[in-house]
């Protein structure tokens, strides 16, 4: 349990202004907008380190005293991942570690601290003629945290899951682990692989449960010489998804999503009133596509893309390219309007990975579940983002329904929808949950077999005292 003695110890590390046990300071950390699913819990102490060395010292003390540590980079994950599960936890607020340590235009890499936001790095990178792979998340979020959780990516459809090259991780006992080429003597951090296993992958998709990532080197991409943006509308889900694999196999798009009508509207609306006004003004499904590269290649690819669309679409369904609204293009460079997803109250998103060919089945199931929970069918949305070029099937999926966490009746609706849909998704078959957090994990933990057991064992090995954000993947074991 964090206490006055710990306050003194932490003050000696970070200084008196960067640590607090005062209730009103801690209240801000006790919940996020996902509180109907992850109960509020006030931490016992909050500490704001400014260097890796300070993080190491804090973890050594926490480990020795067996006090849980909840790392928070920017606190924008909105899924309760940074809300403590145990009383008296240490909130490790990393927002002051917000430096871009290097932008290397020769190696096309950036090295960043956890408090660096997507928007911050994107703007800095573009000033130097390159760009990051933008996650489908607010530009205010931590890029490091998003990449560690394998967020979904707006802008590189063919390589949509992994842009991390190497990381520096403080383990629970305070030891420092460097991965990839950074671990090799006299080697810079610009390559993911070294002589041994890929440790970055081992630590990814663990929400602060395997250590504290204090530095990350990520891939940058060139700003395209030329780009074409267009949207293609479809009346049916089947036709919308039919165009995706051939486009992906041919490595045509850099951006390629399947968006239901209301998701498009949410991305471009400037007010709640506009949300309603724009209903019915877009096709049932829209596939936004971006093609980038040298002008001649872009034009050739665009012709090829149109051929594919023509071959796979009926005239009735659509398939006619239209230019996207200007805000929509901006959104894929520096996400901002995505914050407007909160306009309808709270933002519920059930996110997972799965194959594109199951989209119709997922969608039908979700609309049924939504209706059973009390939602009009049209309020249940499911978007898909293809993320792998090689088979064009792997997608990030996000189911969205509105609710207000201030209105108990809508909280009950969303819960009913959420828990039933989790079960049904497992029945239909998915690749896995995005950003594991407790409820989705709990319904599959006993079905993971040796994979789950080994995962647990690795966590135990890395964090024998179980201090790292306990309860966010595996349930807390009773003492």
């Amino acid at each position: 349990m964090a206490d006055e003695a710990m306050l003194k110890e932490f003050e000696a590390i970070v200084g008196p202004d960067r640590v607090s046990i005062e209730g009103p300071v801690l209240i801000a950390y006790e919940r996020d907008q996902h509180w109907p699913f992850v109960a509020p819990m006030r931490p016992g102490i909050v500490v704001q380190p400014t260097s890796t060395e300070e993080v190491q010292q804090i973890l050594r003390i926490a480990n020795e005293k067996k006090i849980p540590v909840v790392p928070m980079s920017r606190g924008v994950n909105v899924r309760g991942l940074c809300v403590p599960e145990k009383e008296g936890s240490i909130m490790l607020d990393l927002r002051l570690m917000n430096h871009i340590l290097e932008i290397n235009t020769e190696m096309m890499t950036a090295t960043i601290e956890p408090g660096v936001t997507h928007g911050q790095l994107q703007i800095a990178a573009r000033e130097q003629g390159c760009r990051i792979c933008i996650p489908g998340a607010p530009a205010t979020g931590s890029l490091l945290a998003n990449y560690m959780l394998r967020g979904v990516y707006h802008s590189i459809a063919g390589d949509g899951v992994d842009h991390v090259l190497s990381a520096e991780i403080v383990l629970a006992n305070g030891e420092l682990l460097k991965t990839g080429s950074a671990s090799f003597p006299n080697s810079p951090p610009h390559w993911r692989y070294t002589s041994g296993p890929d440790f970055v992958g081992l630590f990814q998709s663990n929400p602060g449960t395997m250590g504290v990532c204090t530095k990350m080197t990520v891939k940058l991409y060139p700003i395209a010489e030329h780009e074409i943006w267009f949207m293609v509308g479809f009346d049916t889900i089947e036709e919308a998804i039919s165009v995706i694999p051939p486009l992906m196999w041919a490595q045509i798009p850099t951006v390629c999503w399947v968006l239901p009508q209301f998701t498009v509207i949410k991305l471009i609306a400037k007010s709640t009133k506009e949300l309603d006004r724009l209903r019915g003004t877009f096709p049932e499904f829209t596939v936004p596509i971006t093609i980038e590269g040298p002008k001649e290649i872009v034009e050739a690819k665009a012709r090829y893309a149109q051929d594919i669309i023509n071959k796979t679409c009926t005239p009735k369904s659509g398939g006619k390219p239209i230019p996207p609204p200007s805000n929509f293009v901006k959104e894929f460079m520096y996400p901002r309007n995505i914050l407007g997803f909160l306009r309808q109250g709270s933002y519920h998103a059930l996110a997972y990975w799965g194959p594109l060919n199951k989209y119709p089945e997922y969608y039908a199931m979700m609309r049924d579940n939504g209706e059973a929970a009390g939602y009009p069918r049209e309020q249940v949305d499911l978007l898909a983002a293809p993320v792998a070029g090689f088979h064009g099937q792997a997608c990030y999926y996000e189911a969205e329904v509105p609710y207000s966490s201030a209105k108990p009746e809508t909280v009950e609706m969303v819960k009913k929808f959420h828990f039933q849909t989790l079960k049904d998704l497992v029945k239909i078959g998915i690749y896995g949950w995005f950003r594991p957090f407790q409820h989705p994990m709990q319904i599959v933990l006993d079905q993971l077999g040796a994979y789950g057991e080994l995962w647990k064992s690795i966590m135990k090995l890395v964090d024998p005292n179980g201090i790292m954000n306990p309860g966010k993947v595996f349930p807390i074991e009773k003492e």
Partner: protein
Amino acid sequence: MSEKLDKLEDYKDQMINCGHCAGCSVFNWWTLNKWIACCPSGKKFGFLSYYATGRVELGRALLEEEIEPQDIEALKRIVYACPVCGACTIQCKEFKEMDNVAVIEALRARIIELGFGALPEHEKIVENIANVNNPYGEPHEARFSWLPEDVQVDNQAEIAYFVGCTSAYREQELAKAAVKILNKAGIPFQILGSDEFCCGSPLLRTGFREPAIEIAKHNVEAIRNRGIKKVIFSCAGCYRTFREDYPKIVGDLGFEVEHITQFLDNLLKEGKLKLEKPLNVVVTYHDPCHMGRHIVLSKRKVGIFDEPRRLLKAIPGLTLNEMVRIRENAWCCGAGGGVKSAFKNFALDTALDRIEEAVTTGAEILVSACPFCRRNLMDAIKAKSENLVYKDVLELLEEAME
């Protein structure tokens, strides 16, 4: 009457639904194409509680009775360490349509209602206003001691100049410039004399609503009794208070209110303001929150951004170099919301940040249109020993008039 002032309960649902998206912590990156923190309080103090999100959580916690007696002093320290500049609200309004300025002011009012009291410096201001009608504790009878003898005041005029406490007692050059300009432009005006009390802004911004209501009633009554049709202000804070707060307290004012830059901008358009004397200077302009963002946030939505700039650009020889953080995305001077009185270092640090930015424009003169911004920005210039001069837009206009 005070029922129309927002209550904390009015925002309960919005507070519960705060998405912790942090959109309130950064200026509009689409507009600026830069990533710049917008919250002076968050930047200074660091913890989440010092951002709008955190204060919203504190508001919720207060309503849900989560605040323990031992937490009250820390609660007050956090809630009052905010200049209520509205930078967060401009951002949040775009997505959540939530007014953090209103929430924070309602939260402060709730703290006072609950009897927790404000910070000692604020209590002193309340006492001063009660005793001598100004927050500085200066004699009420000295309120117009600055008025130059050669200035013509017309007690029958339909226009009144409301001076405000800071110009009356601390930044008198600004008030002198205002009345001289009106005289030179041939605009008959009157002053309220001993009937002018503090506008109540320091009270409303810090949660002391009851005395503010009494003051508002007094000032409005005094203006109505004189048959005044229009009141003009050189203080952004007084202007905001009359325009946005008074109607919630007294209903329809029965007279127009304008910031003096609006008034003079109209004179300029009508050819009645002659700016003929060249001033070969490079200036940059700081947007006061109370006549910019706070007005944008109102139902009228149009802040006073263009008027002072048009006036400056009309001065022959003057070059206006803009800072990056301007208009809705302006960095606060750091003085407002009771910060200057209770958190002097915080106020100064925020102003120093602005001074640094002003210097990068190559400007010799930092210009603004608010005596309270003037005070704090001049303190920062002095502290930094920068080769930069502060002037109110009125001082430059007066210099440029023959």
